[in-house]
């Protein structure tokens, strides 16, 4: 199956704004993220949150063909 990738902020500068990956059926968001970290080990240091089709999900979320997976560094902060 094929999924679309979106990256933001510092992560976008490292990965580009968009991408695509082919995954085995049943793959989870966590599996996808680990495969990206395997390609670029420096990503392992990035604290990350995931959204699939514009909804926050846990790493254990199972992906479906055509899903859009967004990878978020922490949001904007301020006190």
């Amino acid at each position: 199956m094929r999924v679309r990738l979106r990256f933001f902020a510092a992560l976008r500068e490292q990965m580009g704004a968009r991408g695509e990956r082919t995954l085995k059926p049943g793959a989870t968001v966590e599996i996808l993220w680990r495969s990206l970290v395997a390609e670029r080990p420096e990503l392992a240091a990035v604290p990350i949150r995931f959204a699939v089709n514009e909804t926050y999900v846990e790493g254990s979320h199972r992906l479906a063909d055509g899903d859009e997976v967004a990878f978020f560094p922490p949001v904007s902060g301020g006190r």
Partner: protein
Amino acid sequence: MFRVTRRPIVVATLLRAVRDPAAGAVVTFLGTTRNENAGRRVVRLEYEAFHRMAEREMKALAATAARRWALRKVAMVHRIGVVPVGEASVAIAASAAHRAEAFTACHWLIDRLKEIVPIWKREHFRGGQVWIGAQQGTPDTRGRAASGRTATRGRRRRPVDR
């Protein structure tokens, strides 16, 4: 009214959006670009959003707040792109029958917005720039900091429960 915009925020627009005959209080919050952060001289902030999801998350937060504090109306606007010192990057307005609910809701809304709405801030200061994460602390010197100009920081967070 829940909007991510590149234009300067016009507070009057939010006030109009929350006007309600049953409201006895309207509370507004503005987050503005401060000229200093962590000892650095800030020259401007730059925001980036996952536009549609940000608007949807703001709307969801407002719905939760409206139920919890019996608000009449809520409006939230976040500016993206460059926001110069002194100008507003975020504005929230809440109307309610009485002021206590409106104050509390406004405070809760800005705190939650900062935690979960997918918007990121890059601080441009004298001598460099840094992406600001959810934690106010010393810039992480790993990763992009190796370039000498950019650092990424933030604490490890679990995906949000919602």
